[in-house]
């Protein structure tokens, strides 16, 4: 009989019956959902920024404008001659690791998304593009190169991607800042909800807490019971939030992939990024536990 009494021991504070539990769990689920999706966004932007930064540092593009001539064959041959001169010049540079001219098929593929499927791009006068990969850590005097290129192949121009990439990076940085603000707000709002729910519960169970105090319980004894209960709610809420967030992230990723142009597709989540996202229930559990614990400690200071 005593064994039964011990194994069926109930907590002194019947926190599992609190009406605010469901609200708190839903609140935490929503918070983890928002946090997960936003975090995936931040991590994607980070990976995109890293790729773009590498692009700035490691490559440049040379564009050779097409020659307009009534004789198409002759015009193409002249353009290719200009391209060859540019390639020769670039290959002679110590800082260059690899020079790759884009073939017709690659050029068509690049321009296709901008013109749509209905137009046959083969008939259009196409500029030639040369992809130049620089050696790691190479320092290039772009002005000097541009001048040399203009002399060797007057129709060729140098694009080091810096201008447009810098704008994109600034934009991405702004998005990242916005996302981080959202993350902080989500944490603050969740902590606030836990704070008020815990305070309400303390009011509801004031009678029991007074008895516990009179039996010699320290505030930590009460705070630990709240922390355990709220940690569990935080974890379960976090699991539900994650279950909602994962498919949402995949849906957004798929939608992003459909935007062609080679920019969005560079945003990928690494294994570490995924493990961070999957650890969100633990994170919500810790936040819930700490908030509840200190709320109880702070509130009980007003008791005798």
């Amino acid at each position, binding site marked *: 009989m*005593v064994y039964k009494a011990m194994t*069926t021991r*109930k907590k002194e504070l019947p926190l599992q019956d609190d009406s605010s539990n469901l609200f708190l769990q839903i609140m935490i689920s929503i918070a983890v959902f928002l946090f997960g999706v936003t975090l995936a966004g931040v991590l994607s932007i980070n990976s995109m920024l890293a790729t773009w930064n590498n692009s700035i540092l490691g490559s440049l593009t040379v564009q050779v404008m097409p020659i307009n001539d009534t004789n198409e064959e002759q015009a193409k041959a002249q353009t290719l001659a200009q391209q060859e001169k540019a390639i020769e010049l670039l290959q002679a540079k110590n800082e260059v690791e690899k020079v790759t001219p884009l073939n017709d098929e690659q050029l068509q593929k690049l321009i296709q998304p901008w013109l749509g499927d209905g137009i046959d791009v083969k008939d259009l006068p196409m500029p030639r593009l040369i992809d130049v990969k620089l050696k790691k850590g190479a320092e290039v005097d772009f002005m000097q190169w541009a001048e040399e290129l203009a002399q060797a192949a007057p129709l060729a121009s140098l694009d080091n991607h810096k201008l447009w990439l810098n704008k994109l990076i600034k934009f991405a940085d702004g998005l990242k800042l916005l996302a981080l603000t959202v993350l902080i707000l989500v944490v603050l709002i969740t902590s606030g909800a836990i704070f008020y729910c815990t305070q309400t519960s303390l009011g509801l169970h004031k009678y029991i807490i007074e*008895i516990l105090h*009179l039996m010699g319980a320290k*505030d930590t*004894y009460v705070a630990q019971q709240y922390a355990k209960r709220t940690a569990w709610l935080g974890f379960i809420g976090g699991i539900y939030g994650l279950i909602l967030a994962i498919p949402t992230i995949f849906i957004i990723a798929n939608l992003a992939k459909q935007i062609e142009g080679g920019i969005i597709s560079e945003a990928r989540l690494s294994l570490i990024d995924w493990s961070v996202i999957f650890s969100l229930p633990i994170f919500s559990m810790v936040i819930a536990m700490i908030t509840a614990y200190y709320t109880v400690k702070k509130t009980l200071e007003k008791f*005798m």
Partner: protein
Amino acid sequence: MKNSNYPDSIIEMQNVGIRYGQGAEVLSDIKLSLKRGSFHFLTGKSGAGKTSLLSMMYLAQKPSRGIVSVFGKNVNFTNRDALAMLRRKIGVVFQDFRLLDHLSAFDNVALPLRVCGMDEKEVKKRVTELLQWVELEKHINAPTSTLSGGEKQRVAIARAVINRPELLLADEPTGNVDNDIAAKLMKLFVELNKLGTTVVIATHSDKLITDFAYPRLHLQNKTLRIYRPIDMVNPGGVHGL
């Protein structure tokens, strides 16, 4: 149980007054020195302030003025954790029992041991023994909400003494039990007192006071007077016993 680290007085009160909100004082200029190992009855008419005085003794309330020292510590300058440690040395039987109705008799009695972090095996041993002694072994798993008034009272008393307190405060502890149980409970209090526990029992029962020759703390006109057992028939009293 005598501990040389503690002063001889378990409770000291000097010029203590207590009021609720902005109201008039319910107790004024209380002076009291409760010696270690003593046994007192606390008497007074209803509303005389017995519960207020007891609540200061079991550290549920601080005085509005004056100094209250419990186990040598001035309660006004003792931090919350230290107060909790002092409360662990005090057993209290409340007039309204103050049991946790959603818990079993076992869990209610085990409460003071568990808040101290005692090992569950020892908790089991002590609680079972005591519940058998107060003849409640049949109700060990019953929620206290299902118990009768007398049974609740015995659970409350078991909870108060389970931790072998140095100070036992009881508010009408025999009010809801029959004479046999009352005698048995009083015997328990007397035995605890012989082992060194300081006991204060608030009561209206003249029988209890005459049956047991202990001094009496009497509250009247907001102040406290102390009578020797011999003065029972002729209250005129000796102060500051």
